[in-house]
């Protein structure tokens, strides 16, 4: 078991308040805490230049921190900002979406055909995720990648657990159609 640094026990809301009061270290701690999850979320959603998007998401979040009212979790709020930025970026590129095989390394396995099939499936899922309504996509990724239950998702996205469950099942149904 690793020892926790003192800042790890501070809630996100307290760190956000500290940053607003001028403590830059609080911002750095929030970035350390959520950058990897945000990167995974954006990467899974099909974003290109994920690291730039992660930085821009944090930058926008800190610049507009007074708009975060703490009703949703800080992470979910970041995911929403990141989703919006990704959508704007996608529109700017007018739908041109290139997936670099260098950026998305294939696992080095013995069966190249299986790897290729897995890569194609992954790309179809990413493509399907991009076509989902934002709330469905966020619910799906929070459920599947973050392992959040419906109560946590509802709190994060400002909806009810029942509505989150419906969004999740809509997303699954749509993805099954798109990936098939």
């Amino acid at each position, binding site marked *: 078991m690793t020892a926790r640094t003192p800042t790890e026990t501070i809630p996100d809301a307290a760190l956000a308040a500290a940053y607003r009061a001028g403590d*830059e270290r609080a*911002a*750095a*701690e929030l*970035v*350390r805490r959520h*950058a*990897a999850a945000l*990167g*995974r*979320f954006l*990467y*899974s959603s099909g974003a290109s230049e*994920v*690291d730039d998007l*992660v*930085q821009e998401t*944090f*930058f926008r979040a*800190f*610049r507009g921190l007074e708009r975060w009212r703490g009703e949703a979790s800080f992470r979910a709020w970041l995911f929403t900002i990141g989703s919006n930025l990704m959508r704007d970026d996608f529109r700017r590129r007018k739908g041109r979406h290139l997936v670099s095989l260098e950026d*998305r*390394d*294939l*696992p080095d396995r013995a069966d190249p055909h299986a790897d290729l099939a*897995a890569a194609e*499936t*992954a790309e179809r*899922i*990413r493509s399907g995720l991009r076509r989902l309504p934002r709330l469905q996509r966020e619910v*799906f990724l929070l*459920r*599947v*990648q973050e*392992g959040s239950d419906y109560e946590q998702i509802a709190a994060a996205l400002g909806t009810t657990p029942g509505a989150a*469950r419906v969004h999740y*099942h809509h997303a*699954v149904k749509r*993805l*099954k159609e798109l*990936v*098939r």
Partner: protein
Amino acid sequence: MTPCMLLSDRIPEVAAGRSRWTADDERHLAGCADCRAEWDLLRAAARLADSYRAPDPSATAAAVTQHLRTARSSHRGRRTVWVTAVLAAAVVAFVVWSGLGRDNPVRPVSPPAIAVAPPPTAAAPTPADHAPAAPSGATDGFPIPELDSLSTEALDSMLRVLDEPLARAAAWELPDVGDPGDQLLEQAITGREG
């Protein structure tokens, strides 16, 4: 609730390794192509981010805080430029205003006329024609308002007082040129003129 829906709700937990299939679940999966497809989809979706290599969080934190610092200082710079521009404009406006004031002294502004009277005609004299002429002092722009409140008798009395020295001067006794003193004076003048 259908068995498919119950299983569907559990798939993310099992795919993430937080739960295990029961024997019933496994039997259902073996016989339901739709649930198997969902199971495959969810496992693939959960692995989507496996190949994502997140950069060092400390490096990201440093980049973000640096970006915020730069934005703050540029915002401050923009604000300084604005404040300087506004102050400069205020100074220029003041200088222009004070310069104009020196060239064209500000005169007291009379209240605006509510209505303009038509010009007087010979056929129909206006009451102004019958009004007594304004005292010259008033027309020169140096009115003596104290005088306006005095009665005619008081004004006459003042005039009489003003007139008195001259009246008395007429009665001053001047030396008679026929005096011997005059002759002496005349001699003296003649002597000086040569």
